């Protein structure tokens, strides 16, 4: 998609309403900080390009006026909670981010009573890049039908009367699946040969929190240090597999990739497999036991019988 540079940031279609919601967000943040309920509020502020957004950590009540929420607020801030485990923290979450939050709660990576969830009613996020904001919703937002976060302590905005559950259309995944093996191989080789293994995809992923990633383990050395096609393929494949049944679809990995590798195709292929096998979608609840954290006898799939 072609991005266009714009003078002003995208906001809710109704500007006045957008301002009112920003005020609601700032008032809540101020109150939480003033009464010492949280040490920090993680939200968004305007980036240095003047049009896109960036994460913003608010520690002082007098800083809350920099907080914003609009259709450029693409980052999944839930990732940052992994760095704030010992402090009570408030975090601004969209519906997709709330699924990642459920994932981390389910996997016991964060404690519910240490997090104050400021949910935002989400109008969908637009395609953004540095100094570029498009008027088009991101692909993931076109597929998502959820406006209200699945879990929150305080909600900014008015939720719609009816919500449809997160829906997924896999047309692009099916297109790749339909190609012959050799063609699929060529497609992915072409993509992954550009990978520079900067690990931005891993660093922004809320599901990637191993204290030592397999690519950095020396004993045994699972993957070498070469930034070259075989190693890159290995990295991308295992990264995706480790997220099977866990990826909540925030698509941060694809957004940050400097080499424009379509990582969501891999993630959503596995999401589709998990749905077909287990009828499971990650992050819909903090309580449901995910498929790879349990085992049923009838799941042997004929192996080892």
């Amino acid at each position: 998609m072609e991005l266009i540079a714009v003078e002003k940031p995208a906001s809710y279609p109704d500007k006045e309403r957008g301002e009112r919601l920003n005020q609601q967000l700032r008032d809540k943040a101020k109150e939480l900080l003033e009464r010492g309920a949280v040490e920090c509020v993680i939200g968004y502020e305007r980036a240095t390009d003047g049009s896109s957004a960036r994460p913003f950590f608010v520690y002082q009540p007098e800083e809350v006026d920099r907080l914003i929420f609009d259709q450029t607020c693409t980052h999944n801030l839930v990732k940052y909670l992994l760095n704030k485990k010992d402090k009570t923290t408030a975090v601004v979450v969209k519906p997709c981010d709330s699924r990642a939050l459920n994932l981390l709660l389910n996997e016991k990576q964060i404690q519910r009573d240490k997090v104050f969830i400021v949910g935002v009613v989400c109008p969908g996020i637009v395609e953004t890049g540095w100094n570029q904001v498009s008027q088009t919703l991101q692909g993931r937002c076109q597929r998502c039908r959820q406006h209200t976060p699945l879990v929150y302590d305080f909600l900014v905005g008015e939720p719609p009367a009816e919500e449809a559950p997160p829906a997924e259309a896999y047309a692009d995944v099916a297109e790749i699946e339909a190609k012959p093996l050799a063609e699929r191989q060529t497609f992915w080789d072409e993509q992954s040969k550009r990978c520079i293994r900067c690990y931005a995809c891993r660093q922004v992923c809320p599901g990637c929190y191993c204290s030592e990633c397999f690519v950095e383990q020396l004993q045994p050395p699972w993957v070498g240090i070469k930034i070259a096609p075989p190693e890159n393929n290995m990295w991308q494949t295992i990264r995706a597999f480790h997220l099977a049944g866990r990826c909540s679809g925030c698509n941060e990995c694809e957004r940050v990739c400097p080499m424009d590798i379509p990582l969501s195709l891999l993630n959503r292929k596995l999401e589709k497999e998990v749905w077909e096998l287990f009828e499971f979608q990650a992050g819909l609840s903090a309580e449901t036991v995910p498929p790879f954290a349990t085992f049923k006898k009838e799941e042997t799939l004929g192996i080892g019988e």
Partner: protein
Amino acid sequence: MTQTISRRNLLSWLGRLLEERLLIAPTHTTGPILFQPVSKIEDIVLDFDNTALSAKEWFFPATETLFWAETTDGRTELVPATVEREAVVFGIRPCDAKGLALVDKAFLAEPADTLYQQHRDKAVLVGLSCRKASPQCFCTSMGTAPNDPTHVDILLTEVEEDYIVQIVTEKGKALLPDNLLLESKVVPPPPPSPPVVSAEGIEEVMRQAFDSPYWSRLADRCVHCNLCAYVCPTCYCFDIRDYESKGKIERVRSWESCQSPGFTRQAGGYNPRASKGARLRQRFYHKLLYFPEDFGAIACAGCGRCVQVCPVNIDIREVIADIQTIGGRNVP
């Protein structure tokens, strides 16, 4: 009088170079525009802001074999890697050429990095002036300019259908035949003006700001990937590993950065830069204080790639401006 070359002559000259040498130029991929070896002239992209990775990757590749070691009959032989082909890097921007000049200071200081030296010696740089400044650029604040010929062998500046040619070095003179050039009265267009940040006196304020809480606040937002370092035309850190296959050892180096937790981890597990704040601070201190102390220049060419690609908008221009204000004061 200035010398020019027509677009047609430029392309035919490049076609001839392609037959004799490795020609590396900006090309389209299924993703972003990158410097790649060109197999046909039509693949060269002439109209671009800048490539996603700098031309550094052809002098200090993402992955490179340093040598092989093979043992036969109890005798071990070391076979160093060598750079065989003469190359032309076409379309390098003045900022990226300045970046190479900065990497030279580190890699060509005695004892020189022999592979890097070979890559440099075997390549001719044909630069392209920038017609417009992108909003993330700040080259003029880092001692270069959109039309700076200093660090290339030949500089081309587009004017309508032609290019103004500045032959800068003997290497450049030897590469471009005189008969392709025309004498012209065309006046070089004024260079575009990129955004400006004042880095004057930055070394002294960096010395004062080492213990500032500013760094841990900034590290809150940083996701600690290696992206800024890998797109940077002046970052030159690497890791080394030995690969073994059937008794033959290959020693490889690959890009690595100060942002990785493993970068400074020592045997036994001790890590002198264990916190994310310390690692992020290191990046800016290396660029703005340690490199200037060692080599007399800020390790930044102002290309703006890190500004453009940072997932969370860590903007080095904002950092410089903030540190200029904060100095030694104990404020975040």
